[in-house]
């Protein structure tokens, strides 16, 4: 009687874990489609309709935050992201049931705890929310929280593996610069430069100019000479007029790679049992943006790529595959033992059912913050103080799209932040 009950419980758990996994992917696709076609409100409805599942709470708040942001409801987006932050702190603790479930039942039984680069992007978008509301002080708090997170999680290097923190450091530098804290800004820009160099990525010209300008302003002659030797920028690129301010546009484009499960199934011909290993794989979406530039009536500047999330996501996943494979093998062993136990008590038929459910439940964890962009770009216009109309022109495979920023107020020696999302 006890053994039959055990078999029933195992079957229910396996079936339940299967049901949860399928619905997340479907919901994510629907939300992405609606967001991509410029319908963030409908995407929000789809998110709410899917409901708040216990193990996907973090993804719910992260996606909600981005959709509200796309809908320009910055206050509500801030609230959603703050909930995500509180949840992240709690999820840092290792879950006993989650850890047990991931080596016995399925990878998706445990709560989604977020990738390190997703945590940085959370602070990046929260900072952009505050900047949209002209709350420099709160944006500065986000910049400090990025630094604190990196110091806490990676005390030796204070950088993420594979460069996932670069946009966080870059934006933090801009925020400090906007707050008149040249020294703090330089520290952040140095970290960003360190990451570009370590990853072998091209250093954005904008960052080169900022590093040179700030090192010169702060009287760091040796550093200035070193940087000037490295970047070889003309002096005119560093000169700013007395009554000049900056308009900086941060452009988020595309979507992070699509995360799918790839399964390998084999059968033991002697027992007839099936064995399945399913691991996630990232499939990049085609790149849509070909070129983009910022312009006013007097000047034009091309946007530069400052971060590509595709390689970061790929390398992060590659780091995790060995552990995922080990857990998959452990689950196979546990499920095999369960099937053996059921076979002894109830015969081969019942054991086959348990084996079948175990195979079906063996799903790759395809959860991720799927609304993140694939690329982040940046451009800065140096403009005389006053009101300006700025145009962001985006060239994609489908043609040219213009986004107008009307009546942008630029203040001398200050930075005005603008942001845009395209798919």
């Amino acid at each position, binding site marked *: 009687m006890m053994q039959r009950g055990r078999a029933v419980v195992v079957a229910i758990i396996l079936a339940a874990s299967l049901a949860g996994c399928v619905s997340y992917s479907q919901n994510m696709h629907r939300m992405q489609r609606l967001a991509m076609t410029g319908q963030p409100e409908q995407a929000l409805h789809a998110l709410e309709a899917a409901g708040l599942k216990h193990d996907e709470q973090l993804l719910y708040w992260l996606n909600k935050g981005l959709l509200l942001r796309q809908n320009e409801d910055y206050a509500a987006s801030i609230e959603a992201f703050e909930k995500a932050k509180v949840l992240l702190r709690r999820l840092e603790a290792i879950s*006993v049931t989650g850890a047990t479930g991931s080596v016995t039942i399925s990878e998706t039984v445990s709560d989604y705890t977020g990738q390190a680069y997703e945590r940085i992007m959370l602070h990046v978008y929260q900072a952009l929310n505050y900047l949209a509301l002209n709350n420099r002080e709160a944006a500065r708090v986000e910049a400090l929280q990025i630094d604190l997170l990196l110091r*806490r999680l990676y005390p030796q290097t204070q950088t993420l593996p594979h460069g996932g923190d670069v946009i966080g450091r870059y934006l933090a530098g801009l925020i400090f610069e906007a707050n008149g804290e040249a020294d703090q800004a330089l520290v952040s820009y140095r970290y960003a430069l360190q990451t570009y160099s370590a990853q072998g990525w091209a250093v954005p010209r904008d960052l080169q100019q900022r590093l040179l300008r700030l090192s010169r302003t702060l009287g760091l002659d040796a550093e200035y000479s070193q940087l000037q030797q490295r970047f070889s920028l003309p002096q005119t690129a560093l000169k700013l007029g007395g009554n000049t301010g900056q308009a900086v546009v941060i452009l988020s484009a595309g979507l992070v790679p699509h995360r799918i499960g790839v399964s390998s199934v084999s059968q033991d011909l002697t027992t007839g049992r099936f064995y399945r290993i399913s691991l996630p794989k990232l499939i990049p979406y085609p790149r849509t943006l070909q070129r983009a530039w910022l312009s006013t009536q007097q000047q034009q500047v091309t946007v530069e790529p400052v971060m590509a999330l595709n390689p970061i996501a790929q390398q992060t996943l590659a780091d995790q595959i060995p552990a995922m494979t080990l857990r998959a093998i452990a689950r196979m062993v546990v499920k095999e033992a369960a099937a053996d136990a059921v076979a002894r008590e109830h015969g081969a038929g019942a054991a086959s059912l348990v084996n079948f459910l175990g195979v079906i439940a063996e799903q790759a964890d395809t959860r991720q913050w799927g609304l993140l962009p694939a690329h982040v770009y940046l451009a800065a216009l140096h403009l005389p103080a006053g009101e300006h109309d700025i145009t962001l022109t985006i060239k994609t495979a489908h043609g040219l799209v213009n986004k107008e920023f009307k009546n942008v107020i630029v203040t001398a020696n200050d930075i005005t932040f603008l942001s845009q999302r395209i798919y």
Partner: protein
Amino acid sequence: MRNLLVLTSAALLLALTACATQVERVAPDTVRDLSGSWNDTDSRLVAEEMIADVLSRPWLESYVRQHGGQAPVVIVGDVRNLSHEHINTRTFISDMERALINSGRVQFVAADAVREQIRDERADQDLNASSETRNAMGQELGADFMLVGTINTIIDAEGDEAVKFYQVDLKLISMADNRIVWLGQKKIKKFVEHNSLRW
């Protein structure tokens, strides 16, 4: 099977009970630290202590003596949040304003946000109120001193442990000649340890 059913029912009942929201009313001055971040207790304690300090210093007696016994007029300006946390400085400013007013030793005038509302009301009265009852423009009491400050943090954190050091710096500045007549500082240090395991 029956034992399994009984166990499952008991577990479900326990889970449902745990899911229900529980509310316990507490006194506003109850100290309860949950996350280790800046909270209402920090705001209240710092405000009370620093206002008590500023009112006990020589600048107050000196002013009263020089101005024929008249109490100085104080306004609370900006308290900048330079910390790692989103701190609601408005509640902190309110706590300081309350402590100042309730001391009875200074006169207190409204800060900029409220002033604008009052000026709008006066402008409206100028147009719409009777001459006997309207409050004229240009009769505001000017502040003699402005209280401004910053909240800073130094955080040392690794893994689940953090030492949080808050430093609140306030200064009282003379509106007449920019002299800083008082500098106050309050430090709070917390050791925060998060759970490394959860159920």
